[in-house]
Structures are given as structure tokens and as C-alpha cells.
């Protein structure tokens, strides 16, 4: 029932705006949620998403299905833009605030995407349990916090090599638990 995102990207690359609108509808809640998580400020998250979806449109013909899924490609762009945004002079003040702060409350919407996402979300949370606590911690600081591995090492009082290893190992475990990738 859900559209083939790879197909929508291909059509977008040919200038099909309706196909792109479908792609937006299928990915915007997860994409916006990711941006909000990383940049914290919803207004900036909107700007980031606007820039990201524009880049997704512009580069849609360059998506290579042999390299990975369309959804991963979309989230990679949104994530990179979110991280670029949050790394600014103001970001240096973030390190002074507690990074153990509670998760922000998430609005649970009843759209089809939200329902689908929550089903998949349960699978992902289950897969995350296969990581060690320290791998989860390092990965979450890197992915959702937007910190560099060097910053993660400082924040967790680790040698630099340990942080990047935990991030890498955590991703490999997550990948294997979810059965994705090569």
C-alpha cells in the first residue's frame, strides 16, 4: 500500500512534482521528527527540513538504488543538514547543558505514517536492546545529539578511539539485529 519511494525519487528526478509530494508525505513526519530531535528548536527544524527536501528534489536523479534504500538516502540528507545546522557557535553552549535531559514529549499523531512508524519503531527499539548500554549512549549522542565522535569522547570521559569504536560497533549490531544492509 505504501508507495515505492525509490520509484518516487526516480520520478522526482524527471521533474514529477506530484511524485515528490507523495515522497514528502511518506517521509516528512519521520524526517521532521529527526530534525527536531537534533536541532531542538522546531522553527529551525522546519527550515532544515525545507532545505533538505529541496536538496532531495534537486539531487533525486542521483539516488542509486544499488547503494541503499530510498528512505535511508532521504534521512541521510535530513540528518546531515540537521547536524550542519546545529554545529554553530551557539552549539558550544549546548555542551554546558545536561545531555542527560529527558526526551522531549513526542506528539503521537494518528496518521497512517505515524501508525506505520510506531510499528517499525517498536522493532527498532527492540533491536537497540541488542546494543550494550555504552554503545547505545555513544550512538545516541552522535546521531541525535549531532556531536562529533571527539566531542562524544570528551562528554563521556573516554579515549577518542573508544567513542568512535562504540559508535561503529553499535551501528553494526543495530544493522544485524534489523537485518538490513550488506
Amino acid at each position, binding site marked *: 500500500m505504501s508507495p515505492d519511494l525509490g520509484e518516487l525519487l526516480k520520478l522526482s528526478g524527471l521533474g514529477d512534482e506530484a511524485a515528490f509530494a507523495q515522497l514528502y508525505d511518506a517521509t516528512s513526519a519521520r524526517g521532521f521528527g529527526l530534525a527536531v530531535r537534533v536541532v531542538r528548536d522546531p522553527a529551525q527544524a522546519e527550515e532544515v527540513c525545507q532545505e533538505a527536501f*529541496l536538496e532531495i528534489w534537486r*539531487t533525486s536523479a542521483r539516488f542509486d538504488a544499488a547503494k541503499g534504500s530510498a528512505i535511508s538516502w532521504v534521512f541521510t540528507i535530513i540528518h546531515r543538514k540537521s547536524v550542519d545546522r546545529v554545529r554553530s557557535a551557539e552549539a558550544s553552549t549546548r555542551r554546558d547543558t545536561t545531555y542527560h535531559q529527558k526526551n522531549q514529549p513526542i506528539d503521537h499523531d494518528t496518521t497512517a505514517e505515524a501508525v506505520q512508524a510506531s510499528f517499525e519503531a517498536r522493532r527498532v527499539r527492540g533491536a537497540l536492546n541488542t546494543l550494550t548500554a555504552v554503545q547505545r549512549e555513544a550512538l545516541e549522542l*552522535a546521531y541525535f545529539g549531532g556531536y562529533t565522535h571527539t566531542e562524544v569522547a570528551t562528554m563521556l570521559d573516554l579515549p577518542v*578511539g573508544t567513542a568512535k569504536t562504540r559508535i561503529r560497533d*553499535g551501528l553494526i549490531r543495530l544493522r544485524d539485529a534489523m537485518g538490513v544492509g550488506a
Partner: protein
Amino acid sequence: MNDIHALSGAYAVDALDDIERAQFARHLTQCSECRTEVDSSREAAGLLAETTAVEPPADLRNRVLAEIKTVRPLPPIAPDTSVATTVESAPVAVQVAGRPQRSWLRGLVAAAAVVAAVGAGGVVWHPWSDESSDLQLSAADQVIQAPDAERFPQTLENGAEATLVRSKSMNQAVLLTKNMPAPPAGKVYELWLQDADLGMVPAGLMPDGASTVLLSGAAADAIGAGITVEPQGGSHQPTTDPVVLFSFENA
């Protein structure tokens, strides 16, 4: 770098600073194992977004769909050609009225007190085959990795760093910044490419919080670049003394 492969996970989740990111991107052109691992790590990382969905405001959709109408999708990257991607940044008036070049330069030199050092730049050679087209690198990364990329690093008095990377073959320039303070309220950083005849030509506005910015415009013939503080929306000509000035002449 002892074990550059160890950066693959961090790279996949954007947990590298600009320098390491560029280094690892170069490494990827030579290591298919890392390419595979990065692709699958990105698949895994993308799954994390499943856990944080939030419905965006409806007008975001309207803005996105309106904006894509004004921009055409880029064609696929053809193999074996290093095509400089066109920059579809916000419309910027390119026309700069002829100005007395010398007096402008003198004014800039006087204001260069804010610049702690003038980088001499250097040419970096990378003798590997052009496999970058496989990697869907951003336009900025392509410039940074270009075989003829020249780097012009600067340190500002407040400790911020700004490096201009220019590739003549790609005819583009990229600005990398670190710890750059936010511009004053109501103001924006504007980027300029310096032309021998036209003087400072607008090269785009620096997005809030961005630390890597692709300059808009032809950089191959530029003799320098600069950053000034301008009112929101930018100016056709610099209205303030530059915060940073890069000179390409010494390269």
C-alpha cells in the same frame, strides 16, 4: 591517520568534523569495504528516525512544494566527468557597479586588522582515479576533494577559523568555518568572490549555523574572497568592512 577505517561508523552518522569528513571522503574513493560499510551503517542509522516521528506544520509542505517549482532537478552525474554542480542558492543579484578597484582594496587592507593571518594557500594533489562520481558526494565535498583544491586558512581574532577551499577545475569555492560567532541580530554573513575587474561580487548568504558553505559563482578566475556582515537579505555590494578576507594571489 593510523586507522582511518575506524571512522566509518562516525562518518555514517555525521559525527566527524569538516576536516575528518573530507579526509574520510577521500579515503572512501579508495576503499570499497568502507563504502559498503558506510552504506549499510547509514541504513541502520536511518532506522533510528523511526522512533522520533513528529508531524510537521502543514505550511512546511506548502513551502516545500512551492519551492521545488522554482528549481529543476539536477541530471545524474555522468561517469568520468567531474561536473561542477550549479548552485541554486537564493537569487542573488550578480551585477556589481564598477568601482574603483584600488581604493576598495586599500580600504580592505586597512580593515584587515581583524584578520590575524593571511593564508598562503597550497595546491593539494590526489593521484587517484576519479571514482568520486560513485559516491553522491555533496557539491561542497567534491570541491574539497578536487585534485587541484587550494586551501586558504584564516584565524580570526576571536579564535574562530575560516578556510576557503577553491578548485579551479571545478570553478567553485567552499567556505569552512569553525566557532564562527552568529551574526548580530537582523544581520547576515554575506560571501563574496573578488573579481579583478568587478571587485567584490555577491557569492551567496551564509545560512544560520552552517559551517560548510558552497559559494555561488565562478571561482576559477577569482583573485580572492571575503565575508562581510550585511542586513538580512544581503546587499549588492559590501556595506561593511570584511570580517575575513582571503587572497588567492599568493597561491
